[in-house]
């Protein structure tokens, strides 16, 4: 699988696409999947991140999501931010169509 996170990233979250419709989802602390990055469980350090990723496995087995992976996030007062441009766009929607995607549907989306 492609690497979407930086080596040595301090904070990471787990994302995937929902199998039935492909929508981007985030793994939450209670092992559910949310469409909002703001609901994501954030792991600190490598070991915690790997443990978090392991919690995604049952949803893959149960055919709920596909291709879960870790990505770097930043914790801010205003909430969780994706560190890369790619993940920022995934949690929001196309920057060229602000009327589409999560940016048009959810609160807490950042640009």
């Amino acid at each position, binding site marked *: 699988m492609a690497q979407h996170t*930086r080596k040595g990233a301090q904070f990471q979250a787990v994302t995937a*696409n929902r*199998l*039935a*419709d*492909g*929508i*981007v989802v985030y793994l939450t602390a209670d092992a559910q999947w949310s469409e909002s990055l703001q609901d994501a469980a954030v792991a600190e350090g490598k070991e915690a991140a790997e443990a978090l990723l392991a919690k995604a496995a049952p949803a*893959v087995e*149960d*055919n709920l999501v*596909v*291709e879960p992976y870790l990505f770097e996030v930043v914790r801010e007062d205003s909430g969780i931010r994706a*560190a*890369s*441009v*790619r993940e920022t*766009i*995934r949690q929001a*929607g*196309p*920057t*060229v*169509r602000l009327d*589409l*995607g999560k940016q048009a549907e959810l609160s807490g989306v950042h640009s």
Partner: protein
Amino acid sequence: MYRYDEFDQQIVNERVAQFRGQVARRLSGELTEDEFKPLRLMNGVYLQLHAYMLRIAIPYGTLSSRQLRMLAHLGRKYDRGYGHFTTRQNLQFNWPALKDMPDLLAELATVEMHAIQTSGNCIRNVTSDQYAGAAKNEIEDPRIVSEIIRQWSTFHPEFSFLPRKFKIAVSGTPDDRAAIRVHDIGIQIVQDAKGNIGYEVYVGGGLGRTPMIGKKLTDFVPKEDLLAYLEAVMRVYNMYGRRDNMYKSRIKILVHEIGAEEMKRQVDAEFAELKKAGTLHLPLEEVARIEAYFRPPAFEDLPNESTELNKAVLADPDFANWVKSNIAEHKVPGYAIVNISLKPIGGVPGDCTSDQMDAVADIAEKYSFDELRVTHEQNLTLAHVRKKDLHAVYEALKKHDLATANINLITDQIACPGLDYCALANARSIPIAQRISERFADIARQHEIGELKINNSGCINACGHHHVGHIGILGVDKKGVEYYQVTLGGAADEKTAIGEIVGPAFTEGEIVDAIEKIVNTYLGIRTEGERFIDTYRRVGIEPFKENLYAAH
């Protein structure tokens, strides 16, 4: 245009039914993602950044109004009310759900369309010239041979698991609008001294991370031997193309590594064997049968000059600008080729709403024999419009924001979906095209600059054809930040060239100024009548480089 026979319809229907079963088994868990992925890709279904993407084949870029109306309908019902026309003359939907895909494909099949050969390591949907059947200097309508290749290549068992994808393009005129020299196989229709029509064949062209210009392997393949020749090329590739390294698996690498002469020797040997067997000898009556589908429509006898047109040009300066840039000469007196720009100022290149699709379908039905074309430069073409109807067509297009007068001008840019949609992209490409479009919005300035093709790609895979843009822009990722590398001097026509990198990459904030500097450099040094590409070929990269990096 071509109409499905019972076999075509049956295989498409059966394919939909088969995929319906595969989707159901994936959703129920009978199939794992690893098992399902190659199956969905064989049906044009990708998983992109935000959702699934469906790529629909538009064979050689030709569509009927009925088919376009269906695409509009599918966009509304299963997507977000729009689609994206690509550099492969295909249409992509960006948001369909996997669970809806079988129903979507079943509706699509009712208008003789599908998503087969739009993904995977097979011979992909054949592309061709949008002016087919209308161009003045056309030797033969390229859709005839394109359709024959489609029938030969679809589900060809020997070529279903090639080392990598394989793209074929056909041009029927010496002016190449199909970029044939940057395809795995490029076919140029030619005529010999005795008037026989045959095919010049280029092999091993391509863009991506290793751009190459195709090598001419033969000057003339007779009509009846074309499939045997293509099969010979495919066999050599299938046998010797690399499967150990996906970055070296395209035929261009094979041709480069063994050399064009050795490639030709091997192809000729296979060709001789295939001819001996005779099974791929193309009966001329079969060619005639296909040809009949592409017979010219019932053109009227018209004077070449249209007083209605001349009057409207004088009365309406905006229309005059549109005529100047968007209209091309037609082979029949009194007719014109209309190019519909899908590049409104500040818009997304290639995007078209369902409402716009319906509008174009109506206009094509009323004014252009009920059919239209998709171009590899992400525009649409009405191939046969009476000159006296041009103003009415323009007015109808204008109502739907489809009358932008910029074909072949600086704002008529190619852009791949880039990081706004694509899972492979490293950087965004659409916003760069939009900012450039806005900077050069002034129509007088665009005409002053003249023909200039800017191509934008969001990664090295080069779906935005940046290597062959007169100015190419490649988005790269440097430690999570988008940068843009500029190439100059590329071309995708009969004088195909790969652009040269001008220097260090620019940030998102710098790139539009850099493009403007390049354009101003050209304006400062061009001679009378010189297009950007002509000036570049005369002076080379240095003057551009000097001006661009002078302050650095």
